[in-house]
């Protein structure tokens, strides 16, 4: 088995532009990390029950539940963090506020902290992840060998992870800011890696580059770039070039169609040539974007596009592809 590129990393944060499949990649990575007898927690924080939909299980409560068994043994657990529940837990854990916690709720403080206050919500969500990452068994070992966070999209990730900055702009001293400082310490340490998911299109790749720069500036360790939904070209390099210039050999195509027993003639040749041109155009664009991804100089993994959509079998396939490339 190849050595993982991420030895020593305990918290894997997965982000990406909307529509690039970051939840799928987070789940596949979690399965890959769990395989071989490990215990991994996959956390979602966007309150959209993406994990339940992906693994086809009932909506997850605010509780760690087993989602799947990994290859060669290993357990994948899932958790959907709810900001409000996390707030109660936080108040209870750090301030022993039982009844007073409920009084805060009546005054609108819980809603304020979980929906409006800058950074508070993020402290609660990352705080829960932080707690799970550091949680230990009675024998001293970590409860989870790794934690994978299905994080907010690229547009919001840097602010989300810069909890310390957000909170200290509001509360410069006090326990909230101390708590935020502890989370920041983990997030900016080599025990954390933030992986960015993209597809080979101009805007997602541009956002990936922007995000890598922003995270670097914020002192947050960037992990890999995961290129998702990669389709292999169906034509040879020479045919692609000819297709783009509209110079495919029409006579040869037509001859092939006749041999295959297809007699639609010119109109079918036109259509196939047009499809080939569009395909070639996209392949050329993907090539440009792949160069842009390479210029980011990060470990890069490619995941195949699965035409039938993502189910559990698909997740195992993607997980295996990640392992093979050294992601786990």
């Amino acid at each position, binding site marked *: 088995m190849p050595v993982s590129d991420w030895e020593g990393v305990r918290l894997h944060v997965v982000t990406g532009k909307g*529509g690039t499949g970051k*939840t799928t990649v987070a789940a596949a990575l979690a399965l890959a990390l769990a395989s071989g007898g490990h215990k991994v927690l996959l956390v979602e924080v966007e309150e*959209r029950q993406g994990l339940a939909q992906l693994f086809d299980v009932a909506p997850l409560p605010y509780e760690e539940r087993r989602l799947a068994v990994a290859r060669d043994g290993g357990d994948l657990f899932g958790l959907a963090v709810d900001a409000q529940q996390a707030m109660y837990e936080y108040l209870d854990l750090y301030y022993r506020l039982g009844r007073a916690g409920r009084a*805060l709720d009546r005054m609108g403080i819980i809603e304020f902290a979980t929906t409006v206050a*800058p950074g508070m919500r993020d402290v609660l969500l990352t705080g829960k992840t932080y707690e799970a990452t550091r949680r230990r068994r009675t024998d001293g070992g970590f409860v989870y060998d790794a934690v994978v966070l299905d994080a907010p999209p690229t547009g919001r990730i840097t602010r989300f992870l810069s909890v310390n900055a957000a909170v200290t702009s509001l509360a*410069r001293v006090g326990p909230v800011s101390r708590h935020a400082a502890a989370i920041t310490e983990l997030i900016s340490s080599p025990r954390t890696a933030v992986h960015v998911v993209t597809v080979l299109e101009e805007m997602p790749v541009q956002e990936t580059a922007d995000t890598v720069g922003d995270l670097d500036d914020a002192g947050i360790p960037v992990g890999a770039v995961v290129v998702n939904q990669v389709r292999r070209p169906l034509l040879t390099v020479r045919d692609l070039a000819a297709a783009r210039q509209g110079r495919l050999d029409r006579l*040869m195509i037509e001859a092939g169609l006749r*041999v295959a027993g297809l007699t639609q003639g010119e109109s079918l040749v036109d259509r196939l040539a047009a499809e080939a041109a569009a395909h070639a155009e996209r392949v050329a664009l993907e090539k440009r974007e792949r160069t842009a991804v390479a210029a980011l100089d990060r470990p890069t993994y490619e995941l195949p596009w699965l035409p039938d*959509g993502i189910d559990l079998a698909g997740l195992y396939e993607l997980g295996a592809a990640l392992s093979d490339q050294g992601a786990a």
Partner: protein
Amino acid sequence: MNTRPSAHFDVDGLLHDTRTRIIVCCGSGGVGKTTTAAAVALRAAEHGRRVVVLTIDPARRLAQSLGLTELDNTPRQVPGIANAGGGRLDAMMLDMKRTFDEILEAHATPEKAGKILANPFYQALSSSFAGTQEYMAMEKLGQLRARDEWDLIVVDTPPSRSALDFLDAPERLGSFLDGRLIRLLGMPARAGGRAYLRVLQAGFGAVTGALTRVLGGELLGDVQTFVAALDTMFGGFRERADQTYALLKRPETAFVVVSTPELDALREASYFVERLGSDAMPLAGLVLNRMHRERPDGLSEHQATAAADRLVSTREHRLTTSLLRLHAANLRLATRDEHRAARFTAAHPTVPVTRVPALPIDVNDLRGLREVGSELVAQR
């Protein structure tokens, strides 16, 4: 499955109707909201209407194509519009902090406004509170509508956790700013103690203690100064949010929900459609972007695959085999997308739908936007 076709979303009909004054484009992240908003605005302008498009967070090159080189919170005329019909297109990018500052400058004395602008709590509020962007987008929309300089305002919505945030976040922030919580937070400690006592008969000591412990005394001090300076504006924030919300319910407004055939995006679109329905808000239709197109002529996926398999056994005609495989793959995608669109329509049979095909390249100039515009109105 019931495959009754959806009603066609007549985008030109909507754009040309002079009663349409506001178009709100909403949907989850990455579905092409900003591009759709810009394409709709451009098409309306080139039809002869005076249009302003309010974008929230456009990609750099799209912004450049609209002449938006700086974020200055002012509508600027977009050059290069075909204006034979007398139309005009202005574009602006939302600057949420500037918009917030302007509200204060307009409603407080210069001295008080200055105090508020310098307050650390206000600075956090205006730049990083969740919901501020949505509140300010609504506020800007209300302002643009009140100026009455445009026939049509097209709004792109902020990239939120949920598309519903655009509707809910302004109210949440307004309630917070006008609510009892901020007043309680803002009261000097001793008077505050009595206020807590009135509000909560029991447990008040624990609450005040908890607040100070959790938030720290310094923050409370900032909030107190902020609230004292804000006093003349209480009641105003929620009222402003409510007014714009009411504007969104008027028949002159049209919501355009944008999605792709991806399952997550369609799910979000469904939530939004249901919410608009329950709030009696005017939904014009659904734009399905990035659809893989199936044309009625040609071969079926099955025929193409079978033909390719026959050719493979001849060990010849490699090019034709590849082209048939490509054709089969395209048809498969098109079938998948149509199947998903049909499922949406089965759940929401009255929502008109228009489909925009997957374009091989990204759109970042006026020519590209025009192309998207003509795809939006094409009958299929």
